[in-house]
């Protein structure tokens, strides 16, 4: 059984070492809303190329931690490091530009845009995002060429996630699960180095879920890093190399799935005797 | 360049209307004089503008009624009290071949119409109701007016207040638009020039829920007299607030904008402390005009109606004397028919005057609103103002002042 102290040692390790092996590191993040302490001195690091699970009871502060990492909220105190850089308090887009991209627990599709448009929006650094290139004659030709390439990649991704038949549908008309898929595939198109997924499988059909997990494994093999919040213990236990358990805003335990499953405190706080 | 000038002549010759005029020009008895009327018959000034337009049409109707051989084709257009529409309607007039027109009423319509139609198209306009001092600066060859400039009213007020009534300090509370700002400015300058002291000058926005604070502000240095420059739309509220909070002993002087019969009733106060000035319709033939108007329309003339009659009448005379429906020609005749020299004509003998002018005789128009003499800017050489006193819910003209610019 991995103890808390192990975790803390690894967290306190020299920055150089964790930078190479751990692209994302947070230390002592704290956030209060009104009187509620949502995140309370949370510290952990995520290993490169791994699938790390972030679990914990409802209200433990998982989504808030995501929000703090990705700049949706500014932390009251504490730091977020990504690839060795202090990204605390950066704007969401700045965080995403650095390759740290997230999905939302409650999906945020762009309702009146088609699925294709939703996906095309995701690509980073598109030439055509500069107004003048989109507008001026010669420059525009290059934009069009680039767009063709992007479109091709979009279609591939859509097929992969089995939502290509919805390509021209407005995203607002998708079903709950379809929205999750859209959001996940869209996040992938940003060419992230690391993805933070907030309950990506909630509401996704089990068969498709299996395919998605396969895909996530492929991506980790390609060097992507995943931090996944998920309540489905089967998903967590079968797919994560490493699991972080949050409770009441701070990290309760950390370790391999096996460690976690046998951790008394985790069982008491979260797993509820089950599993 | 000479080419182009020629071209213009040619094109005008080619114009249908023009050909008619030329053809009958030698026979003045049958010549058709074209006259435009461009007044706000709807919009902000709609209520004022319609009677003004009626009065402007009166000379033409009069000729018709009296069986004059001269026919005047009147084209009446509505500015809607908007500059945009005013310009369009003015362009319509020009397009119809109208060489001169009576208009417009509101200064902020008159100015754009002058700038973008009358002056460039070389068409004469004569406003019966625009009193903005700005109009003085517009090209005097095409832009005339029978209405007096507010620059004069400000001076008159200063003189009456300082010299006649002996008030040594004054404060001005004025509407924050061209009318209020210009009048207040002239008043303040004149009043100070005469040796008076202006304690405060406060501008206000129209149609506010209350003016108490503004009044408090303007009265904070206890002037001898308060000048209020407004229209009833805000004026009623101003006086209501004034009588609610301040001493009704304090003399107040208002401008023509507030000389309106129902005002004390709307204010619910006899307004005994109020007096005012307004341009007078004080031509030698004011009565003759009033009679004509009453006869035609069944009620007495209102503000600027006499000026409108005069504006149209002078244009008709100038047109006849010029012998053609051409703006330039009319422009050069405007002062000839209006300013001293020649047979005196006016509303009472207009039909005769018309024939004289058609024969090319020299005439001097003396009208309903004034003797109608244009200076080099196209403004009136002299005008007269009425001094009004409010009291016991009535308004009464107590005095008339002749004023030379």
């Amino acid at each position: 059984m991995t103890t808390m102290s192990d975790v803390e040692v690894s967290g306190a390790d020299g920055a150089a070492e964790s930078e190479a092996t751990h692209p994302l590191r947070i230390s002592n993040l704290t956030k209060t809303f009104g009187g509620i302490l949502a995140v309370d001195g949370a510290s952990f690091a995520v290993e490169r190329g791994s699938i790390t699970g972030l679990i914990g009871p409802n209200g433990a502060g998982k989504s808030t931690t995501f929000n703090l990492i990705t700049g949706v909220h500014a932390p009251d105190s504490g730091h977020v490091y990504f690839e060795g850089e202090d990204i605390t308090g950066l704007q969401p887009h700045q965080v995403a530009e650095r390759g740290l991209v997230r999905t939302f627990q409650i999906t945020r599709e762009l309702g009146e845009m088609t699925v294709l448009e939703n996906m095309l929006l995701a690509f980073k650094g598109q030439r055509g995002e500069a107004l003048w290139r989109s507008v001026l004659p010669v420059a525009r030709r290059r934009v069009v060429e680039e767009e063709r390439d992007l479109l091709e990649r979009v279609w591939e991704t859509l097929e992969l996630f089995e939502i290509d038949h919805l390509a021209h549908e407005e995203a607002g008309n998708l079903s709950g699960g379809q929205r999750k898929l859209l959001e996940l595939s869209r996040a992938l198109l940003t060419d992230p180095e690391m993805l933070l997924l907030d309950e990506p499988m909630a509401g996704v059909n089990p068969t498709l879920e299996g395919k998605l997990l396969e895909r996530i494994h492929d991506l980790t093999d390609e060097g992507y890093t995943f931090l996944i919040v998920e309540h489905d213990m089967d998903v967590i236990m079968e797919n994560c190399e490493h699991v972080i358990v949050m409770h009441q805003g701070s990290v309760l335990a950390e370790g391999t799935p096996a460690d976690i499953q046998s951790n008394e405190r985790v069982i008491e706080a979260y797993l509820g005797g089950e599993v | 360049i000479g080419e182009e000038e020629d071209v213009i002549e040619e094109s005008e010759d080619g114009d249908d209307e023009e050909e008619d005029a030329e053809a009958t020009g030698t026979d003045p008895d049958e010549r058709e004089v074209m006259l435009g009327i461009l007044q706000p018959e709807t919009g902000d000034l709609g209520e004022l503008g319609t009677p003004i337009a009626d009065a402007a049409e009166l000379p033409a109707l009069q000729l018709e009624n009296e069986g004059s051989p001269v026919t005047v084709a009147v084209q009446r257009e509505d500015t809607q009290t908007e500059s945009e529409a005013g310009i369009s309607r003015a362009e319509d007039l020009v397009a119809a071949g109208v060489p001169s027109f009576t208009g417009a009423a509101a200064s902020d319509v008159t100015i754009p119409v002058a700038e973008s139609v009358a002056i460039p198209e070389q068409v004469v306009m004569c406003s019966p109701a625009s009193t903005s001092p700005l109009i003085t600066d517009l090209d005097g060859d095409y832009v005339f007016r029978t209405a007096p400039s507010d620059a004069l009213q400000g001076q008159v007020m200063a003189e009456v207040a300082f010299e006649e009534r002996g008030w040594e300090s004054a404060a001005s509370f004025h509407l924050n638009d061209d009318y209020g700002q210009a009048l207040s400015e002239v008043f303040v300058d004149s009043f100070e020039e005469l040796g008076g002291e202006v304690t405060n000058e406060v501008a206000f926005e129209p149609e506010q829920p209350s003016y108490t604070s503004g009044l408090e502000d303007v009265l904070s240095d206890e002037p001898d007299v308060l000048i209020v420059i407004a229209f009833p739309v805000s004026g009623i509220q101003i006086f209501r607030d004034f009588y609610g909070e301040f001493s009704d002993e304090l003399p107040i002087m208002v401008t023509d904008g507030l000389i309106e019969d129902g005002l004390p009733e709307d204010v619910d106060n006899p307004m005994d402390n109020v007096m005012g000035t307004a341009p007078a319709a004080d031509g030698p033939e004011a009565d003759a005009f009033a009679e004509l108007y009453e006869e035609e329309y069944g009620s007495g003339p209102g503000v600027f109606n006499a000026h409108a009659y005069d504006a149209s009448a002078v244009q008709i005379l100038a047109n006849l004397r010029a012998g053609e429906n051409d703006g330039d020609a009319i422009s050069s005749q405007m002062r000839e028919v209006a300013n001293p020299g020649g047979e005196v004509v006016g509303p009472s003998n207009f039909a005769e005057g018309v024939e004289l002018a058609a024969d090319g005789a020299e005439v001097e128009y003396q009208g309903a609103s004034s003797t109608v003499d244009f200076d080099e800017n196209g403004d009136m050489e002299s005008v007269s103002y009425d001094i009004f006193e409010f009291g016991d819910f009535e308004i009464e003209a107590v005095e008339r002042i002749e004023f030379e610019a």
Partner: protein
Amino acid sequence: MTVDETDADPDADADRTAADGSGAAPASPLEGAAAVTESRPRWQVDLGYIVLTTIGIYALITALGLLTGLGFGGVFRQLQTVTFLAAAYALVVLALNLHWGYTGLFNIGVAGFMAVGAYGMAILTAPTEGTTTPGLGLPMWVGIPVGVALAGLVGLIVVLPALRIRADYFAIVTLAFAEVIRLTINSGALADVDAFGRQLGTGGGRGINFPLLEHAIPRWVLYEGGDPAQGATFVGVQVLTVTNRLGIERTVVESAIYTSVLVGLVAIVFVLSVRTANSPFGRLLKGIREDELATKSLGKNTDLVKIKVFVLGCAIMGLAGIFWQGRNGYVDPDAFLPIITFYIFIALIIGGSGSNTGSVVGALVFAGVLFEGPPYVQRIINQVIDLPRPTTIYDAVVALGSFDPLPLVGYTVGQLANLRFVLFGVILILLMIYRPDGLLGHRDEPASPLDLRAERPTDGPSSVDGGDDDE
């Protein structure tokens, strides 16, 4: 068979929209010409809409005018007025569409930005002496760009604080800003200022006279150095020779050139807007409109994009203000009352927000039919019949009691200018209920330089139309 076709299912409908483009093309010669290139079907359709609307409105005005004896001259004037107004509206509606239609920035301070542009130019170009509100006396080619830049700059000042507030707050803030601008211009405090050792100022309520753009611009086209005394330019010689032959007056030529320049500007802005919309940049705008946080989380600097778009739109609004007032040679604060903004909104909504073509069509319909229509009709009625004019509606209704409807009709006709606003209101309401997307809004205009519906690079199992029922 034909019945079958029209009753086909929605998917087929979507297909037909694209196909319809070429079907409708021959409707106008312009489109026919474009059809030859065969590259941009969407362009043909769009141009078709605009041309058809223009023709329709022109025909209406001409027919009404001629029927009622306005004469060719009058009709021509009316057409020119309508064209000018429509073009001026189109320019500012396109800008508003960029703000609201695409980016979701609910700007109801349009009049304020127009005021900044117009006043900026007026102050720069008004003569240094000889008028009551002197300016800097600079030529118009300085005045126009600086006016436009000023409008953009004020846009920047407005958008910076407004970035973080939500849509309806943003609306009120822009409206308040527009009023602040108007009231400040109107205020006596800034009417005359000593600046740089010169008399300058806004003129307060009395406004500013400046050289008529309606003359200055055509003269720049026609004469060397913009001065008739220096002889005609090459273009000027051609134009003047032709118009001389036709016997058209020079002032008419100048007005026509001015209007054409404005129409040309509209065309340029239109093309640029279309390109903007159909581009990755336009996609960003749509993304911001739909969900800013989601767009941000995809790594897009939405604040920067919003600032860019807002400033750009404001600059175009400034340009529209300049050209609009440039026709009068005179600006005063009353030209920028909040109601102007609502006119512009009505025009945009008629056409359909989110559609550039809709913006132009809306401007045409608003200026040509709604705005100019009622007074036109009123004039015609007034010319044709002589109605009694009771002073109050009470008298008119009492007369009804004795079966005399004429006073009520007369009263109503007399009130047409006011009832026009009722008409605006009713149209706005009907549109929002029955066609909230306007005549052309919410067409599927892909936010991409490619026609997304047509292109599918890889041959997937489902066909071009999103075939939900294919599987």
